[in-house]
């Protein structure tokens, strides 16, 4: 779930975006999205810095991305990146996945977010749609412990196999904890 404070910044942009060609493009894309997958599928439609951002539920994410990939009009057939995120304060929506899609032909980008509880971090995989999703999902699993149903090889990718936590979750410290040569913790660190 996006931050509540975000509304201010988006409101400021709205006026500027009215004349913007990207805003018009985004409006078209949004209309198509609504037509294809139903208006109720998407919540929280925003356009921070000209990039259409929609939030949906994890039940729909596979269908939406598959539909976008196959759609001949939108041609969103490039998965730019995906990453996990952790908001420990948002109850039952602690974890999230953020997908960046790109329609190379129309040169439009789309950001899709899903949020789900920490206790049930299960998300459908995209490996059947995009080969590139394989490692990105492994990375998200490694960092956040998000489990991708149907992933062919969901193992840790960057960290050592026997690591027992998911380090990018916000509760875990960054530091190694073993260093000896750095003792000062003053000056606002």
């Amino acid at each position, binding site marked *: 779930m996006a*931050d509540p*404070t*975000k509304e*201010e*910044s988006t409101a400021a942009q709205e006026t500027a975006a009215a004349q913007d060609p990207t805003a018009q493009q985004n409006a078209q894309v949004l209309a198509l999205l609504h037509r294809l997958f139903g208006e109720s599928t998407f919540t929280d439609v925003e356009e*921070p*810095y000209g*990039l259409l*951002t929609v939030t949906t539920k*994890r*039940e*729909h994410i*596979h*269908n939406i991305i598959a539909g976008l990939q196959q759609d001949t009009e939108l041609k969103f*057939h*490039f*998965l*730019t*990146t995906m*990453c996990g*995120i952790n908001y420990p304060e948002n109850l039952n929506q602690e974890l999230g996945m*953020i997908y*960046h899609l790109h329609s*190379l032909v129309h*040169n439009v*980008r789309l*950001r899709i977010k899903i949020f789900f509880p920490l206790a049930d971090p*299960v*998300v*459908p*995989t995209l*490996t*059947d749609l*995009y*080969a*590139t999703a*394989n*490692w*990105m999902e492994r*990375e998200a699993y490694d*960092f956040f412990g998000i489990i991708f*149903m*149907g992933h*062919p090889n969901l193992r*840790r*990718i*960057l*960290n*050592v196999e026997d690591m027992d936590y998911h*380090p*990018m979750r*916000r509760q875990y410290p*960054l530091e190694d904890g073993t260093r000896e040569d750095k003792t000062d913790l003053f000056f*606002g660190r």
Partner: protein
Amino acid sequence: MAVNDALAGTHKIIQEAQEQQGGQLVPTLNDFSQELTTLNLGPTHPATHGIFQNILQMDGERIISGVPTIGYIHRAFEKIAERRPFYQITPLTDRMNYCSSPINNMGWHMTVEKLLGVQVPKRAQYMRVIMMELARIADHLICNSILGVDTGAFTGFLYVFQEREKIYEIYEEVCGSRLTTNMGRVGGMERDFSPVAIEKLRKWLKEFPAVMKEFESMFNRNRIFMDRVVNVGPITAEKALNYGFTGPNLRAAGVDYDVRVMNPYSSYEDFEFDIPVGTNGDTYDRFLVRNEEIWQSLRIINQALDRLPDGPFHADAPHYYLPPKQAVYKNMEALIYHFKIIMGEIEAPVGEVYHSVEGGNGELGFYLISDGGRTPYRLHFRRPCFIYYQAYSEMVVGTSLSDAIVILSSMNVIAGELDA
């Protein structure tokens, strides 16, 4: 729809695809050399440059399957970035794709500028373009000459490395460091080009084409080299897109996707240059595309240098751009700004921004989520190497060990960017 239902058949598709490949590639039982050997390529194998491991199943010298393992220099960039103020992330980006640090630096600065809404003056933009294109040349030079080294021709590498050394000199003149440049600041450059830097740059622009021509004539039409690279490790455009290829590797497959043209940043729309594309995405195409990109980058640098506008080299943004030292001594306001910026207490708006630049290896994206604090709430790097290296295990199937090494070096996998 339930999650599990949505997923029905996912596995099947992948399995089918694998079987389809397997049917052709796995030798039949009556094949004499059925016995497969497992060869551990890396992590300290000389051809893996950076550090990653490939466990190859080999039938004699033919590769049946390759399983890559990465993460050997995982440094937790994204986690560190959550604990560092914006300006301290620049040194981190240096070390991501260390073959072309300035591009990473500039990409990061532009991301923050986009977040903060800072307008960078034209001169700074042109200066950035010059440095980014220099970095691109340096990156491609390394990649192509290392391809030469991996095919056994060491000398070409040393010839072009001299040019890289000169690029280092220019970097040093501009920012004070050779490799991990920490160049530029949010809002512009940290200092203007010195006359020496411009002179060195002009001199280099004059000398470099001859060396580049020599390098090309040593390799481009040499049959030994061509035999090693033509039709080795080809990848179709569809597959490349599916694997998320960007940059020279995608262009070698024939797709003219270039962030500089599609989403121009830092005044790239002012310059005239072509996007070289290859035909079938094999190693030779990747080599040629990189070589041609070097020429195109030279074109851009020449244009930018000739048209370098006058004016300030940084934005007039006292909230984000450090005041000059002299002002800090004399001016209370400047001193306050100085303290605030250094302590990281700049007023970053809440929001999220994705900005991508054309890095040495493709679309280098920065996805920054700011919650208004002094550090990013989350910073995700779209690292092109990480994304396209997963195609490697598919590309090497059916080739020989020598091919596998050539493919690897032509993909220009930079360990720092791969593992982040």
